């Protein structure tokens, strides 16, 4: 008598019998040795399922969390860069219109200066590529707070554009200076972190 192979026994456990296995099933029903082997196969599977769960030596959540935060910061920075570009274009248009009116004043020059400084700092941050570096939780937290505040200032700048000319100049100058201050702080955070970890 030819007994079933382990391959056949494995296939017989599957639902949906293939045509060639009908004979094998008939053999299994009649053969105590093959039945014993099928039972051992099931027992081995049951023993595998009963093996204890292996646990990681330490939690990987802090690393995963940091990765998520890093991705969010990257998205926010991209948004900031876009918003900054739109803001600069909008301001350039304003300045050009004003120049057309031959009306230049100190506030306008100060805004230009703050805008230029803001651009420099943004380029500095981008060249430093904070997302490509390892960040500790505290640095990431402070950086994300600063980025949130910069985004808030950008929204205020958009609103200030809609105000009257005199009010607009004063308010925009304050906001641009505030933006420069926040970007300065953001650069400090990244550079301090870099010097601490030896980049």
């Amino acid at each position, binding site marked *: 008598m030819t*007994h079933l192979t382990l391959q056949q026994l494995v296939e017989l456990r599957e639902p949906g019998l293939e045509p060639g296995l009908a004979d094998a099933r008939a053999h299994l029903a009649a053969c105590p040795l093959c039945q014993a082997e099928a039972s051992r196969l099931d027992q081995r599977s049951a023993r595998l399922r009963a093996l204890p769960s292996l646990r990681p030596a330490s939690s990987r959540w802090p690393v995963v969390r940091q990765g*998520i935060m890093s991705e969010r910061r990257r998205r926010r920075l991209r948004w900031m860069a876009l918003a900054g570009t739109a803001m600069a274009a909008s301001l350039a248009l304003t300045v050009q219109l004003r120049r057309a009116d031959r009306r230049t004043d100190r506030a306008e020059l100060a805004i230009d200066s703050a805008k230029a400084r803001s651009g420099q700092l943004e380029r500095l941050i981008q060249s430093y590529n904070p997302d490509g570096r390892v960040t500790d939780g505290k640095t990431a937290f402070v950086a994300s707070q600063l980025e949130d505040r910069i985004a808030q200032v950008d929204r205020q700048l958009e609103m200030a554009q809609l105000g009257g000319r005199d009010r607009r100049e004063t308010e925009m100058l304050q906001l641009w200076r505030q933006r420069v201050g926040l970007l300065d702080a953001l650069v400090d955070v990244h550079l301090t972190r870099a010097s601490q970890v030896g980049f």
Partner: protein
Amino acid sequence: MPEAFAIAETEVVLARARAGDLDALENLYRTYEVPVYNLARRICRTVEDAEDVLQETFFEVCRSIPHYRGDGSLWGWVRTIAASKALMRLRRNKYRDAEELDEEFHQPQASRQDGGLRMDLEAALERLPETSRAVVWLHDVEGYTHEEIAGLMGKTVSFSKSQLARAHLRLRRWLGEETALA
């Protein structure tokens, strides 16, 4: 474990996780950390690889949870990501390119004396070639069908079945289980 999953699968946690709430995402991590690691460790050769798979799985879970439609169980969805990452790592590392050939080379004594060899199940499972071990674990323990395993591995259903049979053949021999069959 199913009770813990039921808690994690509550709509509230899921909704918060989909919205990117870090506490909810951490809740998911804590719920599935051990089963994901266990699956990864059973498939991967080293602890380090299993830990990397654990980490990669949850990066993916956190990134993709807004797209989880809730068709199947959340654990089923997480598990498939984990299995896929673990198998990807196996392919990347190619631990044993000639795993069928080098067995004799690495374990000459054991191979010659398999008739009298006794291993416990943990050791026997650990000793299986990577592919066979992955198939036997995914099929017999995690409950994947051969069709699903074939899909995950990019192989045929026949391949999955034959790997499972070979795994059991080896386990039977190494566990010293007596048999009158070939």
